[in-house]
């Protein structure tokens, strides 16, 4: 195959899944000339598994992406079929928005954004080789011999690297949903010296809605309140589609037990490590044998299709068993299976080979993001994608790199976990992975990140101005409520009685009264109205801040402590093997991860506090030596 020069770019993005699109859009918006190469232009931002976005932790990531100037939130706001706020009965830190997506609409809307984006060239092509000179990426070579040169390259190939689909005893080379797998690129990445692991994930069968007996299921409608992920969204979809809830039956459990020998999970055919938090139905029934039934959610895949996703029935059993399984579920007795569930194994990069910017340590100017880095989930992919895009473009344009901290964003937690601890299974974000989850709320993602998005150039002036005003209003209203006194007048007592609270005995600052669990901002507002009515978002921020001030304060103190350790930088030329006090296991992981700060080092598993103390002493010693010299 003759090779030919096909163009030069600042940034090349390989792949156009959820990581790739965010990477490409952010790079192009920052002014970097960006090429997106994807095997199939019809598969942009495809959702190969569940038709939903958001939920606990993940929904906050969608908001964070939006606050940074990314696309995911805006696109789902335009294309969802249902939205719900979850965990409303709990505190503000864990509330989370979740949307059911119209998969096809989501894809076409995202494709349109890429097509319309200045500086961005969208091209169908199969990358087979990375062009590397002196440990620095120079460009890529495609199947047809085209050489594209670039200052930086981002690989976002998801589960395509040496992908293999498994159903029963059938196993074939394939990307998700019978797409072409990426074999040569996978081999090339290995040859370049990257450590890879084999991961596994799976998806349930889909059935035809027309053949479901919904009378045997419970309806799960969307919320009446109109929600949006994006802070820019002004038009809300009111016409929502419901989901439905049913359960496995005793027959389902029997079928699993009878056919376990046919499951590639149990026959040993699947070697890849699957996620614990997203078990297949085989796993659920085997591991939780005493549970008599499991929930099955029926989720429409879009407005213009009858296809329904059977959440909770993820399986890689043979197709004929899957058919019986479906028929054993109340409501699905006569359901027609449209696609079978399957498991997929794929190569993932060991993510400790990455810097916190998502640049590879091995090859300069090469970045990786998304499921390739060992994560699972569209939101996790997109969160990495936008950061890889920002950093690759910054490198190409000679700008400063950006790393979000664990106290800045769930995206920061996600990337730090990956590059510091690695992962032994497909990594999913959970709220409990964040130490400061009270600070990382879905409602304040804009407060945390809009300024950063603006500095990078992804947030425009108009939105930035609106953000500044909102911030001012919040601060002013908090100050006002701290100053203004509420007297025990009869009007005030009436309002308090409505809430079931105990009456005021003496005058009280409005902020102190708002701290009572039964009181919310709207009652305070009635007692001591502000000069100007505040927006709902401002009121929410004021209420949360005052009500949970004590807890927020505690979290901030912890953050301060961590930041002090974060500021103790480890010199990049450090030779851990030369430090004789450090345990050999710690030496090897420290040499591999090459943490940038003492704080990061202390989070590495296998590095114990003794090693950290020695490291601190060693670094101090180095400094003393420098001063002495």
């Amino acid at each position: 195959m003759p090779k030919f020069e096909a163009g030069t770019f600042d940034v090349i993005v390989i792949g156009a899944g959820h990581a790739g699109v965010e990477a490409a859009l952010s790079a192009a918006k920052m002014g970097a000339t960006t090429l997106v190469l994807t095997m199939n232009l019809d598969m942009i931002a495809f959702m190969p598994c569940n038709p939903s976005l958001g939920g606990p932790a993940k929904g906050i990531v969608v908001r964070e992406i939006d606050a940074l100037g990314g696309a995911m939130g805006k696109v789902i706001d335009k294309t969802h079929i249902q939205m719900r706020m979850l965990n409303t009965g709990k505190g503000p830190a864990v509330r989370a928005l979740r949307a059911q997506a119209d998969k096809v609409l989501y894809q076409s809307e995202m494709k349109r954004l890429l097509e319309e984006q200045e500086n961005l060239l969208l091209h169908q092509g199969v990358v087979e080789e990375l062009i590397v000179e002196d440990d620095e990426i120079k460009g890529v070579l495609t199947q047809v011999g085209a050489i594209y040169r670039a200052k930086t390259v981002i690989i976002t190939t998801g589960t395509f690297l040496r992908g293999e689909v498994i159903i029963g005893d059938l196993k074939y080379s394939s990307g998700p949903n019978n797409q072409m797998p990426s074999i040569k690129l996978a081999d090339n990445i290995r040859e370049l010296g990257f450590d890879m692991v084999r991961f596994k994930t799976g998806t349930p069968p889909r059935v035809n809605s027309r053949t479901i007996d919904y009378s045997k299921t419970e309806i799960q409608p969307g919320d009446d309140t109109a929600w949006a992920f994006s802070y820019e969204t002004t038009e809300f979809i009111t016409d929502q589609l419901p989901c439905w809830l049913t359960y496995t039956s005793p027959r389902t459990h029997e079928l699993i037990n009878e056919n376990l020998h046919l499951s590639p999970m149990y026959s040993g055919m699947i070697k890849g490590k699957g996620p614990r938090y997203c078990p297949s139905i085989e796993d659920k029934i085997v591991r939780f044998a005493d549970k008599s039934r499991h929930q099955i959610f029926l989720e429409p895949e879009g407005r213009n299709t009858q296809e329904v996703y059977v959440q909770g029935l993820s399986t890689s059993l043979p197709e004929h068993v899957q058919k019986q399984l479906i028929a054993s579920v109340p409501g699905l007795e006569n359901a027609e299976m449209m696609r079978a569930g399957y498991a997929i194994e794929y190569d993932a990069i060991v993510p400790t080979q990455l810097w916190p910017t998502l640049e590879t340590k091995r090859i300069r100017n090469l970045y990786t993001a998304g499921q390739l880095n060992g994560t699972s989930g569209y939101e996790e992919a997109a969160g990495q994608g936008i950061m890889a895009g920002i950093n690759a473009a910054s490198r190409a344009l000679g700008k400063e790199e950006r790393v979000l901290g664990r106290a800045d964003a769930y995206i920061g937690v996600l990337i730090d976990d990956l590059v510091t601890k690695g992962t032994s299974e497909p990594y999913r974000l959970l709220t409990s992975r964040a130490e400061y989850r009270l600070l990382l709320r879905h409602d304040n993602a804009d407060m945390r990140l809009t300024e950063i998005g603006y500095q990078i150039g992804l947030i425009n002036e108009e939105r930035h101005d609106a953000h500044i005003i909102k911030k001012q209003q919040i601060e002013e209203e908090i100050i006002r409520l701290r100053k203004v006194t509420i007297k025990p007048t009869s009007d005030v007592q009436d309002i308090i009685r409505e809430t079931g609270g105990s009456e005021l005995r003496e005058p009280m600052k409005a902020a102190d009264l708002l701290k009572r669990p039964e009181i919310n901002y709207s009652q305070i507002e009635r007692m001591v109205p502000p000069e100007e009515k505040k927006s709902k978002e401002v009121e929410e921020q004021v209420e949360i801040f005052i009500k949970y001030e004590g807890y927020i304060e505690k979290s901030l103190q912890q953050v301060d402590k961590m930041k002090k350790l974060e500021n103790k930088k480890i010199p990049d030329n450090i030779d851990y093997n030369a430090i004789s006090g450090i345990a050999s296991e710690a030496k090897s992981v420290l040499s591999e991860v090459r943490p940038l700060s003492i704080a990061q080092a202390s989070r590495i598993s296998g590095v114990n506090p003794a090693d950290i103390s020695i490291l601190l002493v060693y670094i101090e010693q180095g400094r003393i030596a420098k001063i002495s010299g």
Partner: protein
Amino acid sequence: MSNQVRKVKNVHFDTIAAISTPMGEGAIAIVRLSGDEAVQIADRIFRSPSGKRLNEEQSHTIHYGHLIDPSTAEIVEEVMVSLMKAPKTFTREDVVEVNCHGGIVAVTRVLQLVLKQGARLAEPGEFTKRAFLNGRIDLSQAEAVMDLIRAKTDRAMNVALNQMEGKLSRLIGGLRQALIETLAQVEVNIDYPEYDDVEEMTIPLMIEKSTWVRNEIDELLKTSSQGKILREGLSTVIIGRPNVGKSSLLNSIIQENKAIVTDIAGTTRDIIEEYVNVRGVPLRLIDTAGIRETEDIVERIGVEKSRKVLKEADLILLVLNSSEELSIEDERLFEVVSGMDTIFVINKTDLPQKIDMQKVMEHAGTGKVVTTSLVKDEGVDELEEAIAGLFFEGNLESGDFTYVSNARHIALLYNARATIEDALAAAEAGVPVDMIQIDVTRTWEILGEIIGDTVQDGLLNELFSQFCLGK
């Protein structure tokens, strides 16, 4: 440039405190505080006659006044306080030294007071470590520190492992298990809100679990040897057959030692209590009626009381007569004290020895054996040394309940109690579960620090233990 003071920003965080004079008796004792909040913490408990606060005073000055317990407003101690502000201090942090009366009781109360005000108990050598990390020590000293760390790494690991065993860690482990189960349930509820697989962790359930943990911590604190000793002294029972010299022993110890508490009632016909301070160890000495089977009703009441006292004793002094052979009654006494912390006092060595020492040693096992002649005033020093040794080496252990004997553990237990109290208060005020969870998690972490499980940045500070604590 060896002693050049470097301009390196201070790296350390919290305020640490420790007793920096040797444990035991002395005219004065010093509790030292170092860290950003050293002065604020001292100000919370220090009252000078002029009413002036320490943070208004000049650095490197010394002040007379009283320490008060802010929770009760009671005066705790009469003190002199030295104020040394950063950077010209040993650690290059703000340093406050509280000079109080000597003896373990006074100084431990002062230490507990500053710990309750937010200081953290310093690990061995931590003051020195801070001095080093804050740039007070030069290169050659730094290398010495490195050597020290290398040499001590293994030992520190062993120490941590040893702490993992034993009754205390099993108890703490149980509390942590209960907490982690509660937390896991909360987390699953949060991350999988629609799954019905896990019962919703409701506020009442959270209150129930937290209350249980709080009560367990209270129990632990109650049995903490130092807490107990500070309140009532180390309960020490003198037993033996009649006429072996029990009362002489009691009198010898009392005569030699100043009584530290005298106003507690409880003296009965059969049981005499005396409070004495033996080499810094407060003892509550109890002399019992002889333990032996008896037909005499009046005497039997005394004996039953003795048995009860015996059960609750922290330390037993079993007195035997050197000039007589071991009797059946002695054998019974050996049985009674088996498994308890006992010092065997072989009295009347001025008379010809008839006792079978071989047998005594067998019964004593790892317990200490001391020979005395109380009429000649011999052996009392050795006995006192043995008592102090048992206490300071932390060898005292009770068969019936767990002692929390380590000051660091006690401080952490107080912290854990405070955070679980916060969680309870929040739960009762109707704060959402995921907020309450913050304090529950913290409690879990603190308890983990006791058994060396979730140690964050400093277990290794052990390594600096070569340096005298508080230096």
